[in-house]
């Protein structure tokens, strides 16, 4: 059986063989409701194989895993900085030795999760997506996630899942890690809409909605995965 989104993606990729390789083009928007105001951020992505282009406001980041490099582009100064891209799965850091100077400040909740795959569905980008509700309880925090999992094309949208979680600005590692683990357990899915409600230990309630806007396979603008011609390399910040 060929699910419609898979088929269209397959044909799009196939047809583009003689042209510049097709890329995934997506926009992502995050609405963060906190202290009676909503802060909206948006980003545009182009993803092709090991190459990723991200534009947030005026900031552009190009990740070239094929070269092991990441460039941060500053269009206003016509300059860029370069740093090495960390590998996909870096070795887990050795357990840091406890330092009494910093104990008790940085609280990272360790959530115990209850996950419910519901029967609720909605159509996003022509795909039937299913709602999973996850509730996390930690000693000094609680969170509820509403994750809309949709059928996906593996090759491109797996990267989109990664960037979506990174883009979302989720405050706690435990939440971002949980979403990543859910995506890993569901390799054929894309996360196109995520809602987070978190009661942090001290600060007021936080609500966040992250959704994918544009989602298409198309030929990328020429040179989008390269440093624009004429840009000067600037020293990277330490």
């Amino acid at each position: 059986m060929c699910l419609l989104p898979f088929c269209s993606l397959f044909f799009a990729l196939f047809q583009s063989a003689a042209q510049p390789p097709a890329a995934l083009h997506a926009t992502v928007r995050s609405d963060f409701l906190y202290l009676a105001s909503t802060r909206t951020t948006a980003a545009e992505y182009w993803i092709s194989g090991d190459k990723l282009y991200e534009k947030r406001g005026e900031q552009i980041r190009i990740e070239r895993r094929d070269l092991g490099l990441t460039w941060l582009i500053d269009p206003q100064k016509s300059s860029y900085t370069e740093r090495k891209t960390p590998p996909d799965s870096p070795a887990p850091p050795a357990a840091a030795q406890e330092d009494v100077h910093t104990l008790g400040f940085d609280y990272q909740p360790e959530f115990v999760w209850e996950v419910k795959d519901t029967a609720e569905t909605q159509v996003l980008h022509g795909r039937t997506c299913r709602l999973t509700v996850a509730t996390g309880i930690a000693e000094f925090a609680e969170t509820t996630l509403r994750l809309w999992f949709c059928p996906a094309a593996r090759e491109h949208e797996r990267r989109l899942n990664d960037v979506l979680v990174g883009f979302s600005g989720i405050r706690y590692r435990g939440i971002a890690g949980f979403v990543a683990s859910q995506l890993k357990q569901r390799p054929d899915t894309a996360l196109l809409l995520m809602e987070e409600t978190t009661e942090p230990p001290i600060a007021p309630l936080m609500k966040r909605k992250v959704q994918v806007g544009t989602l298409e396979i198309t030929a990328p603008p020429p040179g989008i995965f390269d440093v624009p011609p004429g840009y000067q390399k600037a020293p990277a910040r330490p």
Partner: protein
Amino acid sequence: MRTALISLPLLLVAAAAGQPAPRLPQPVVTELKRLEETYRVLDFVAQKVWPGWNTYRKTPFLLDYENGLRVLIGHPNPPPQFQAVPDFKVEDKAVFADWTAVTPKPLLAPLRADGGPIPFGAGPDGHPLEVVHMSFRSVPSKPSESAESESPEALAEDQMLVYIHELFHCFQRELPARRMYGNLQYNPDVTYAVYSELEGLALERAYLETDAAKGKQFLADFLAARRRKRASSMNTFEQNQESFDEFNEGTAVYSEFRTLEILKAGGFAPKLTATQDSDYHGFSDPDRFLRRYPDRLKRTAARTEDPRSKSYEYGCFQAILCDRWFPGWQSSVAGATEFIDRELGRRLAVPEDEWPRIEQRLQQTYPFAEIQKRHTTAIEARDNAYRALKARAGRVYVIDFKKTGQYVPGAIAGAPKVYRLGLINMYPEGVGAVKFDEVEVTGLTAPAEANQLYYLRLIDTDWRQREKPYTLDGTPQPDGTFKNAVLRTPLFTLKAPRVRILQAGDLVKIQVLARVKE
């Protein structure tokens, strides 16, 4: 004690019926009058406190009360739950109130508030807008353990000085190109504690010294102690955070101090009257308040824990001494030198080869051995308490007071011992009891910690012997909560107007949802 009671049923009925909101309770009205008087005080002093400080009317205020009432003053775009308070303004600023979450808890004067600038709502441009947020709480008849110097007295002038302090924070953000370093998050070791106290003593000696040459020697002592402390105990980031806090909090305290000095020189005509506010005396005796600052410096210096709390007094006294001996320091720290201690170093210009001699002087002319012994004992006890708490394993009970807005350390009285690491207050010999309004936790003899301000955490090491983690009497509600709850566990008994119980793995989390019966 004066009491202002708000009738909850009346409020809810009025709100539900879309009727005009009820009148503001008298303690709130009094506070708004104080805010008006604060602006008049600032009209008189602000330019003398810091050149260019004239934007203090710009920032809206958000007043937050323990009964859930919120009052917003001068906000250009109040969130929808805030209703305009008719016929009431602070100067020309509109006043709005949010009655939607008001509980029957009475507002009992005297009240005291602290807080700071936060983003709240959005301005006309849609961007988050900064307001001065003040959380009011009842002044305890007896000081709690968390407020060692808190007096049950609540003078209007004290509250106005808090407003001035917070408004000065807003002004700091207008200073050119200030880099942000964040607050110091640091637990002292013995070296830090010793040399930090020497810093404070040196500042005190410099303040009391009238001879400029001798005073500057004490300032060199301060810098020598700082060099030694930082070289052995802090990384560059932490050093910058410490100096950043001293600028932020220190100059805000300095703005209070300078306000009082300027008022002491005379010429200010109060407009708020004793009839309107019986706790206000028109700053007729500024010395009464000024005396507290050197007292606080001395007390703070001797403290082993909580280095950040020292930034208020240490920064303030560095600023006061700069005023005395280094004119023009304000424009310098608002620009190139950035930190007050860096400015002191630039002005004193101690030759590099002088420092060993000055450091030697610290050991000879200050009670070094006594200080070292005291802090060594305190830090060993703190670290032992941490190790003992960390070694406990079993079923975890967390009592969560966040919904009530109650800081746990502020509701504990009489705990035999308490030690602090970061946001953890450790009670190795138990807490005794937690009490506020109609909430009571008793029987707390097991080692415990108050963590992240709102949570009390205990571990039942014998949990395998227990049949059940708790028993609960109360009236179940459709939303899964329990009213008039009495919860009994092997480690404590909790009585509260409303609770919710969450269980996950070995964690039993009890959320206290109300301070008083609804």
